[in-house]
């Protein structure tokens, strides 16, 4: 007998099941508990929050994209005719899932790499031409403001995968720029040495 073949008794069971009450009232009114949860702020209101978060995310993405583009342009114009090959091997990034946002910590490898670059940043910036330095500083500041904004949004939507990914890519952008500054400053130093 296959699954679709039923005995008479099984047919009777199904027939009885169709007659079972599907509408059963709870013994107590559950609304007060629901209203309390909705009211006390522990539950996010139903007003369209996603569009706002998406708008924030899109704005931040635009900001970071523009900032990175500007930095890329600044560093790749004719001002410094030195080929730069940043050493990526020391900064291989392996994403750590769920490790971002105000409630999370960055992965230790990422944090080490970032701290090392941040520590060297001022020193490296001093070696750059003044105009380039101003542009780079401005763009790093923009990226850090974006990181702060995303963290704020994550505090409201800690489970937002989009925001977590956005934060991850923004941190990566920041590291890429610092990495580039690092390589650029050394290139400038080498060229000066010549």
């Amino acid at each position: 007998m296959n699954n679709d073949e039923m005995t008479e008794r099984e047919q009777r069971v199904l027939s009885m099941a169709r007659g079972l009450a599907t509408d059963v009232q709870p013994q107590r009114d559950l609304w007060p508990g629901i209203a309390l949860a909705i009211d006390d702020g522990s539950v996010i209101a139903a007003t369209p929050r996603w569009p706002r978060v998406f708008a924030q995310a899109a704005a931040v993405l635009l900001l970071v994209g523009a900032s990175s583009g500007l930095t890329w342009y600044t560093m790749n114009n004719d001002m410094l005719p030195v080929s730069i090959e940043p050493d990526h091997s020391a900064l291989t990034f392996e994403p750590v899932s769920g490790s971002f946002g105000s409630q999370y910590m960055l992965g230790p490898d990422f944090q080490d790499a970032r701290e090392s670059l941040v520590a060297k940043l001022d020193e490296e910036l001093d070696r750059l031409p003044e105009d380039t330095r101003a542009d780079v500083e401005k763009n790093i500041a923009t990226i850090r403001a974006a990181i702060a904004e995303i963290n704020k949004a994550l505090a409201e939507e800690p489970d937002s995968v989009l925001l977590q990914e956005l934060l991850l890519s923004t941190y990566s952008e920041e590291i890429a720029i610092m990495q580039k500054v690092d390589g650029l400053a050394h290139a400038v130093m080498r060229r000066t040495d010549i």
Partner: protein
Amino acid sequence: MGAQLAARTDNYEPVAVTAQGEGDEQTLIALAQRGNATSFEALYRLHIGKVYGLCLRMTGNASEAEDCAQDAFIQAWTKLALFRGDSAFSTWLHRIAVNAVLGRMRKSRREHDRLQVVRDISPPTATVGDSGGMQDLEQALDELPRGARHVFVLHAVYGYSHDETGEMLGIASGTSKAQLHRARRLLAQQLEGTGT
């Protein structure tokens, strides 16, 4: 039913609703999506019976069913802005309720604490046939293994297709069919034992 909902004086916007019919429900949903809690309360009043009934039959425990139904409506409030009307609102709510039940069951394996669901259920006004047979079925249903019970409740009692049942429970449609077959067989055996 024509439930006239009393206006609340605190942070809620007063909305008097004749809670009947699809058009009214759409209005309630639209208002609730804009953050109107009174409209959401009207939706709760409309759907709590079916949502609680589903939770009760799935958990087999009145207290857990209340918690699940409450969780489901709180979740529904948080996700209401995402409801686009692709399915019926009741189906959307039921999916959330099923998730609430499954989530709660994953957290606590308290199957042994289950009470006799039959005694918790209000007098079955919507049943047909002899009430003794129905009570036996309720009891037999409560004794089913969890997977088979969930499929039987969603498919045979609430009328969802195997595809919908599988989607709600996170199982394949074929698994749903197999579980239904198992449930049917076990229930038939149990009812045979009771002489129903």
